[in-house]
C-alpha cells in the first residue's frame, strides 16, 4: 500500500520534464526562472519542478543570484 501512495519520481511533473542540456537556467533569464517561483516567490520543490538534483541545484543558484542583483524578489 505504501508503494501505491508514493509519488512517482519519473512521472510527468506539474511543469513538465526538462532536458538537462537546456541552457535557460541562468540568472539573466528572469522570465524563465519566474516560472519556478510560487506567488510568494518561494522556489518550487524538486517534486514540483521535476528537475534532477543537479538541475534543481543550478536553478536554486540562478534564482539566488538573480535575487542578489535585484532582478527577482525575495518575497512578493
Amino acid at each position: 500500500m505504501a508503494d501505491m501512495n508514493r509519488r512517482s519520481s519519473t512521472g510527468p511533473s506539474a511543469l513538465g520534464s526538462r532536458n538537462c542540456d537546456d541552457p535557460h537556467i541562468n540568472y539573466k533569464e528572469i522570465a524563465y526562472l519566474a516560472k519556478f517561483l510560487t506567488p510568494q516567490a518561494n522556489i518550487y520543490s524538486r517534486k514540483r519542478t521535476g528537475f534532477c538534483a543537479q538541475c534543481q541545484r543550478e536553478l536554486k543558484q540562478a534564482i539566488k543570484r538573480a535575487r542578489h542583483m535585484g532582478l527577482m524578489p525575495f518575497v512578493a
Partner: protein
Amino acid sequence: MKLYEGMFLLDNQAVRENWGRAKASITDILAKHGAKVITARHWEERKLAYPIKGRTRGTYLLAFFECGNEGVNQMRRDFEIDDRVLRYLLVNAEALPAGELEKSQAEGAAEFTLPTPPVEERVTAERAVFGELADRPVVDRSRASAPAPDEGDAAEGEESEIETPAVGEGV
C-alpha cells in the same frame, strides 16, 4: 587566467551623467587588478525587484574578463567602496556567449546612444518598509470613532463631545 562574468548594478544618476564614464569606472577597476576586459556592455535598464540603497531603478552592465584569482578578491573590495556600484556579481564563465562580442562592439560605434534612464522616486526609509502604505494619510484611531463628514468641523465637534459629559458631571 580564468574567464569571469561580471554583472554590475549601477546607480542611474551616474549613468545619466555619462554612460561612458560609468562604464570606464568599472573597466578601470577591472584593469587595475590585472584583468583583461574582453567585453563590457549595457545589459538593461530596469525597475528593481526591491529597493537597493534607496533606488528603485538601476542600470546593469555586463562584462566578461580574464583574470587571476588574487585579482578577483582584490577588485571585490574596490566594488564595495565605489558608490556608483549598487550591487555586483562575479561568476565563473565557461565560455563567451555567442553574439556577446558583437553586442559589445556595437556599443563602441559612434552612432550608439543610450536612452536616458527615467527619473525615479527616491525611496525613504518609511517607504522601503511600508511600501504604498507609507503614502497614506495617518489616521488617528483614537479620534476617528465618530463619522466625520468635514475634517475641520469634526475636530471641533469631537472636542465639544468630550467636554460636554465632563461639564455635566461637574454640575
